[in-house]
Structures are given as structure tokens and as C-alpha cells.
């Protein structure tokens, strides 16, 4: 069994195509794995009956030689994607019993390509968080544990990062071959970095947002979390599409990303943004970054120092724009048509009661911030100014990309931290996103790959940032780095 769950997606695909294994065996093995890692709280709903039906259908297709690119591949779905007839909650009490009558475009694409739904994955409530500690369904535990001073495992529970913490934990713990995730300010890449997985955030407009619960519309973008770069390429090819139901979807053909993995990055120009060398950056992060530079150089890439002067404004700007959009996007959860309704003496009370009980503290905090920055008298000073700064951030990247093809940075300023360590301090928590948010502000594609371990044995990620709709160069380079990094460490709390 464990052999099946330890396969990469591409290996499993090859074995399925070769008829070495069946989709049903693969799905069954994964449900056994899911049971084993229940304490991680990665899944908040499993769909075994549905999965076995889907697997049987895939086996029939495989037998007839009609396999889609994800035929028979068991995946987990972040609970932000609406799945038809399968409860979808955004990890919020306010949607605690919501069962959509429709399927998100991203997941519909995957089912068309043959993927098998294992279940819905925990995440921060409405994707708001960097540690998966804001979920109504409880914290997700990182499968990785620290190595103590005595070289023994320290059993302190660590966060998997967020908001796609369930997705990252499930992939790392071998409880699915791949997972969907979403990234508004780093929610794919930061948990990938914390769990030793690959997290790919595509260009804004690459994946349709239709049917995915909105957090901040101008920043949200779906992408995969996988164990290898190749797997991410295969997943994105299925997830991405032009969708006329999403006005921000971009009509660009989806390439066969896997073909981009040529292993050849000679002559590629890689930029190292000096503004990412922040004060107080741990030496091991700095060293890892330098190591990444060496790997790319060795593979024939050219390294350039570049400047993205407005980088320091990215985080504060993000924490104006994202809450502003969220405050409006979340207005629909009012207890009138669906979701939690807590009665009151009049409609205003009913709104207040439903939303006070339905939303957790972090969501309420962001609604308050967002409402404030859009209010009369503050709009110009906050929201409008933030939009102007956002344009400047984007222009920084445009200018850099006149000379280079890609940027290399660390994904996060630290490795995973303990559950409860930062939850009382939102500002420290928000600093987790410092290397990831500017990518969302500029709408660019970026990928985080596991590149090494911290002194206490936790995974650390490096981030590559690409040009708009040039995911191919990103995958190609990430693949080369992945080979060079040869990251073989495994988490302690994985399915055996």
C-alpha cells in the first residue's frame, strides 16, 4: 500500500497507463493513508464512495485507452473550491453546511481529465491566515517535526503554513498525490515551503476563479501543491483554462507544461532582487538563497542583481487591498439565503448575530480593516493610494523583466513555527507573507520548491518568480533546481 501512496503523480500516471496498477487500488491505498494521518486534521471531509466510483470510471477509461491527463489520479481539493453535491465550507462556520449545486471550473477541468476526488482539505477560514490556525474545523498539524538539540525529534506541533495548510500537509504526508490550493498573498507557496512540497501559483487569469470562494478577487489565483515540479506541471495543465464565466480569465492557450521540462536553462537570465535581503533574515535562509544561485549558475544560467524598489511597500499595501476586497466579497454571507442564520429581533440584528457567530476572529479583523480603508474620508488615503503603489510594484517587475527572465528569492523568512506561537500577534503572522505578496500584487506566476533543511531539520523553500504567462520557463528552471537540490528528506508524520 505505502508504495502506492509514495509515488509521485507522474510515476503513478505511468503505472496506470502501463496497467501496473489500477485507479481503484490507488484510491483505496490513499484512503488507508488518510486514516493514518487523521491527527494532522488535513481533511475535513472524505468522499470515499464518490472516489471509488470515479476510480472505477477511470479504470474503465484506462482499459479503453481513453485516459485523460489526470486519469485515475487521487487528489485532495482545498475546501475553497465549490464541488457539486459535496459540502464546501471555506473552513468557516458560516458555510458549515453548504452543499453547492455547481462545480468550480478548476475542479470540473480536473474531473474531465480523470482525477479522483479523495475529499476536501482544511484551510484557513476564507483563506485568511498563514498558519492554518483560523479554520473553524481546527488547526492543521505540519507532518514535519523539529530535530531537538539532542538530535531526537521534538514533538512540538508545528503549523503547516496557510492558508492552504491542509493541501500542503496532505501532499507532504502522502495522503494524496496532489492537491488544489489557492494563493492570494502566498497561500500556496508558503505552506509548500513549510512542508517540503512544491507550490505553484500561476499568473493571475490563468485559472478560472469561477466557483472558488472569493477572498480578494484581484489577487486570488488557484494552483497546485505537489511533491515534484513535474507533478505541478501536469496539475496546472489540467486546472488552467480560459473561462468566459470569469471576466478576469485570460484567453491564452494552455501549453503542455510537462514538455517544458527540458533540463536546459543555459543562458537564462536570473535576477536576484536586493530588496528581498531584509534585515534580520536568518543566516540559513541567506545561505540557502546563495546555494540556489550556485545551482542555477552551475546549470548555465546567468545571475544578475536587480532592484525592485517598492518591495517594502508590498506587505502594507497588500493588507489594505486584500481586506478591502474581502470586506465586500464576504458581504454575501448574511444568513438570508444559505449558510448560518442566527435570528435577531430585526434584520440588522440577524445580520450582526449571524456574522458574529459565523465568522472567526481573523476574518472579522480583515472585514473591519477592509471596511475602514474603503470608508468615506479614508478611501483616498488608503485604498486609492494602495492601488497606486500596486501599480508601482508591478512596474518594478516590468522593468526588471526587460533584462532578466526570472527572479530567485527565498519563499519565507523562516521555517515552520509552532502552533499557537504567533496566532496572538497578527503583525508577526502577516510578516510570513513578506516574500510572496508582491507576486500577487503584480499578478505574476511563481513557484516554491523545497531546497533544503533548517538547522532544526525543517524544510525551507526557494521561490522562482516568472513573467506573466511564462509558466513554462518557471517549470523548466524549477525542475533544474529540484534536481540540483535533491531534496529527499521526509516528514516524520507521514502515512507509512
Amino acid at each position, binding site marked *: 500500500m505505502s508504495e502506492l501512496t509514495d509515488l509521485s503523480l507522474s510515476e503513478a500516471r505511468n503505472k496506470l497507463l502501463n496497467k501496473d496498477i489500477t485507479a481503484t487500488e490507488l484510491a483505496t491505498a490513499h484512503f488507508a493513508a488518510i486514516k493514518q494521518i487523521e491527527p494532522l486534521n488535513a481533511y475535513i471531509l472524505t468522499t470515499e464512495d464518490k472516489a471509488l466510483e470515479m476510480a472505477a470510471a477511470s479504470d474503465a477509461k484506462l482499459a479503453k485507452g481513453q485516459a485523460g491527463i489526470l486519469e485515475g489520479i487521487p487528489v485532495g481539493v482545498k475546501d475553497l473550491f*465549490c464541488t457539486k453535491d459535496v459540502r464546501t465550507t471555506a473552513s468557516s462556520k458560516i*458555510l458549515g453546511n453548504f452543499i453547492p449545486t455547481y462545480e468550480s471550473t478548476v475542479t470540473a477541468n480536473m474531473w474531465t481529465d480523470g482525477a479522483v476526488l479523495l475529499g476536501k482539505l482544511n484551510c484557513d477560514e476564507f483563506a485568511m491566515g498563514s498558519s492554518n490556525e483560523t479554520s473553524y474545523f481546527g488547526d492543521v498539524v505540519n507532518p514535519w517535526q523539529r530535530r531537538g538539540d539532542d538530535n531526537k525529534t521534538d514533538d512540538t506541533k508545528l503549523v503547516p503554513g496557510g492558508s492552504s495548510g491542509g493541501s500542503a500537509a496532505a501532499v507532504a504526508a502522502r495522503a494524496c498525490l496532489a492537491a488544489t490550493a489557492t494563493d492570494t498573498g502566498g497561500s500556496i507557496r508558503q505552506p509548500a515551503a513549510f512542508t517540503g512540497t512544491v507550490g505553484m501559483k500561476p499568473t493571475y487569469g490563468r485559472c478560472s476563479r469561477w466557483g472558488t470562494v*472569493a477572498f480578494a478577487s484581484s489577487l486570488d489565483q488557484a494552483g497546485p501543491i505537489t511533491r515534484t515540479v513535474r507533478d505541478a506541471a501536469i496539475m496546472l495543465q489540467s486546472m488552467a483554462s480560459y473561462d468566459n464565466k470569469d471576466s478576469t480569465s485570460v484567453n491564452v492557450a494552455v501549453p503542455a507544461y510537462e514538455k517544458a521540462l527540458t533540463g536546459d536553462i543555459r543562458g537564462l537570465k536570473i535576477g536576484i532582487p536586493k530588496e528581498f535581503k531584509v534585515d534580520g533574515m536568518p543566516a540559513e535562509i541567506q545561505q540557502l538563497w546563495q546555494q540556489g544561485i550556485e545551482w542555477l549558475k552551475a546549470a548555465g544560467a546567468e545571475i544578475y542583481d536587480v532592484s525592485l524598489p517598492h518591495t517594502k511597500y508590498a506587505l502594507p499595501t497588500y493588507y489594505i487591498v486584500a481586506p478591502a476586497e474581502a470586506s*465586500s466579497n464576504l458581504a454575501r454571507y*448574511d444568513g438570508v*439565503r444559505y449558510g448560518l442564520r442566527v435570528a435577531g429581533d430585526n434584520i440588522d440584528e440577524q*445580520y450582526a448575530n449571524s456574522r458574529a457567530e459565523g465568522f472567526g476572529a481573523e476574518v472579522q479583523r480583515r472585514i473591519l480593516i477592509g471596511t475602514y480603508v*474603503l470608508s468615506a474620508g479614508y*478611501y483616498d488615503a488608503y485604498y486609492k493610494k494602495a492601488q497606486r503603489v500596486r501599480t508601482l510594484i508591478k512596474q518594478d517587475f516590468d522593468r526588471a523583466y526587460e533584462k532578466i527572465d526570472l527572479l530567485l528569492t527565498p519563499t519565507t523568512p523562516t521555517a515552520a513555527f509552532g502552533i499557537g506561537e504567533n496566532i496572538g500577534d497578527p503583525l508577526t503572522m502577516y510578516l510570513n507573507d513578506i516574500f510572496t505578496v508582491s507576486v500577487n500584487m503584480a499578478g505574476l506566476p511563481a513557484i516554491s520548491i523545497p531546497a533544503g533543511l533548517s538547522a532544526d531539520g525543517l524544510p525551507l523553500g526557494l521561490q522562482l518568480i516568472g513573467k506573466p504567462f511564462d509558466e513554462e520557463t518557471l517549470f523548466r528552471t524549477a525542475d533544474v533546481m529540484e534536481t540540483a537540490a535533491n531534496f529527499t528528506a521526509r516528514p516524520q508524520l507521514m502515512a507509512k
Partner: protein
Amino acid sequence: MSYIQGATGDWEIVMGLEIHAQISSNSKLMSGAATTFGAEPNSQVSLVDAAMPGMLPVVNEFCYRQAVLTGLGLNAEINLVSIFDRKNYFYPDLPQGYQISQFTDPIVGKGIVTIELADGSTHDIGIERLHLEQDAGKSIHDLYPNQSCVDLNRSGVALMEIVSDPDMRTAEQAKLYVTKIRTILRYLGTCDGNMEQGSLRADVNVSVRRPGAELGTRCEIKNMNSIRNIGMAIEYEARRQVDLIEDGGVITQETRLWDVAKGETRSMRSKEEAHDYRYFPDPDLLPVVLEQSFVDAIKATIPELPDQKHERLMSQYGLNSYDANILVAAPENADYFEIVAKGVDAKLAVNWVTGDLFGMLNKQGYTIATSPINAEALGELVGLVTDKTVSNKIAKQVFEIMLKTGEGAAKIVEDQGLKQVTDTGAIEKAVDQVIAANPDKVEQAIAKPKMAGWFVGQVMQATGGKANPQAVSDLVKSKLGLD
């Protein structure tokens, strides 16, 4: 300029209007749901209209075309770049918790509309802007004692909000302005203008000032759905403001409602209670960027508009402005008239259309579209009057018969022998007989020439109304020596 007489002198009313016109379209502004009026509650609601999680708006291009067409019809600038914003507030019939509208960058900018006043003079009213927005659903509060019901059929239907400059000074002008806008929209086919069904509603901003003084504080009367009520509400509100100021009071900016039953406006909410709508660009929608060629192509489809038609009816048919105004009030009126007027006396045709026909339609509850007598049939009848086959009086009888039997005018005249007698010999004989039989009346008529009419009547009666009345009159006068 007409002022309100206050206890302390004259006051001038200043008004600007916001007209909400529902776009004639099969589907909503941001979703594919249908827009039919009067459908079963909540039967025309898409996932987008109900604001289900993860649903996204997509602009209905047809609605955009309709807005551009309307802008062109209002002689207004079309903005090639426009932006949808969110107007945020909570209400049960607003599922998204925001209305998608256009705030900073509307589709249509400044324009001008001309109204013609009762004295024949014209008055220009500036259009500040026209923007697109979603309509809300309907809340129904009177079905259950402790619950309200929500019908989302209207939720997301496309509205054009047409904002005027504060260019109106009398209730009459405001009524004429709404009428004019409604007429233009109907000509363009961009809104059916049906105020009873709520497809056209107006918010009226009213303030008063001493003539020529600075603008006073305004009050907004919301959701007016008849032109008559607009007039009454303005008269009431202006008088209320004048009385309040003259009593030493101060007008506070507020939103007021017109109570039809009581005939008064009352306060709905003050400026302090007003929402902070937190407008910001809708991140689900990109700015709409139009090509000039797109606008030009729409421009080429604009039909003849009321002002042009008015001008043409006067010059082509020699109509007076009053008659022309009645005909242009609805394009189908003018179309009907133009068919009737083909080859017949135009003055006669306009009298028949605006008099006999409209009178009949009103009385019997028809519209021009459902008229039991079509334009060709009426044209045939008016043709018979024009060529003197029948008198106008006989024609009215024929009209009644047409209404009853549905037969053609010529056939009725033929079958019933209603042709006008133009044979002077026969008429002369009838005149002689009447004169001979009434010597006393002859004496009276000679003393009082107006009595000649009595003889004409007698002759007409004797000929069964078929004699040409002019010929009879001429003969009577000459026989009695009155000319």
C-alpha cells in the same frame, strides 16, 4: 419664469432628476437569467443573482449596447473607457451585499435634452451622466406578520440611471422632462418606459431659493412612479420648504417619500443616517474599453428621434406643433398617422387620428397597437372624406360601422348608399321644398341670418345626411338672399 408666492416674497424651485430606466433586454446585466415582468417569484434567479459562493458577474454586452444607444439618443458623450464599481450596503433583497454600478467612470457623460413648454417655447435640460447598474430584488413585508419575503426576479436586472443637471424650475418642466426622456427611450427601444410596472422610476431633488440666490438645501423624493405624482410631489415639497423657511426653520438634507394616499412627502432618512456605500472598482470586472467604431456602428442604427420627427411632421404634412407633439409622443402614433395620411388630406388625417381614433381607443381600452381599426382602414375612410365621397359627418357613422363589423369603409359606403349627394339639382329641390314649407322661418332667417343653419339642418335631414353640407349651405344662403 414662474415663482412660488411666499408670505415674504417670491421663491424659485430648483430641481434635478435621477431617472432609473430598466433596460429592455432578455437577460440581466451580469447574468443570463431572464427578465420577464410578473413571473413567479424567484423563478428568474441565476446562481450569480443569488450571490452563491464563488459566482462571478459577466457584463451582458447587449445591455452595454443599449446604454450606448441611449447616450447617443440623449446627445451625450460616450466614454470609451468605463468602470464598474461596487456600492456596498446590506439589505435582504441585495444578495451580493453590494450593487454593481458605475461611480467614477460612467458609460455616458454630458448630454442635452430639449423640452417644449405649453407656450411653445423650448427649454434645454443638461444631462450630467448616464450609468449602468444592477436593480435590487423586491422585499415584501406584508405577507406575514413577523417575516418578510424576498423576490429576486428583479435582482440584477439592468438599469440606466440618467442624472440631469439642476435645470428645472417648475413642476411642469419636470413632468415634461420625464415624459421626454420616456419618449426618447421608447423610440430607441432601450426601455419600455412602463412606470406602473416600475421599469421607469424617478428620484426628484427639490430645493427652493430666492430668485437668483445661491442654491438651497435639497431634499430627494425617492422612487416616483407616475408623472402625475411627480408633479404633485414637487408642488407639495416646494411649498413645504418655503413654509418651513418662512417660519424660521432650516431645511435639512434628507431623503423623503411621497405618500400617495395622504398627498404629502415625509422623511425617510436624514443625511446623517445615509449609508457610507464604500464605492470601489469591482475587482471581478475589468474596465470596459470600447472602440470608436463600436460606437459609430451603434450610431448608425439610431432611429428618427422625437425632435426630428416633430420637425418633419410639421414640414412634410403642414401640421401645427401641437398636433405634431401628440403624434411624436409615441413612435407608433406617428407611424399610424403616416400610414393614414398617405394620399389624403393631412389635416383631416391628424384630426381623425388624434380625435376620433384616440377617443375610441381610450374609451374602449385599446392601445394603438391593439386598435380594432388599423391605419390602412382608417386611411381608406379619410380618403373618402378627402375626395368628398362622404361628408365628415357620414364618415363618423361609417367609422362606427367599421368598428362593429370590421368591414372596409368603401364597402360600407357602397352597401349602405351613404355616398354624398353632389348633384346640385337634387339638393336645390330639397332646399326649395324646405323653404316653401316654412315661410315663418324664412322671415326669421332674413331678420337673423344665423337661422340659415336651421335650413341647412332640415335639408341634410331630408337627404339622409348625404348632401354635401357646404353645397347645401351655399344654396340656402343664396335662396334666402343672405349672401
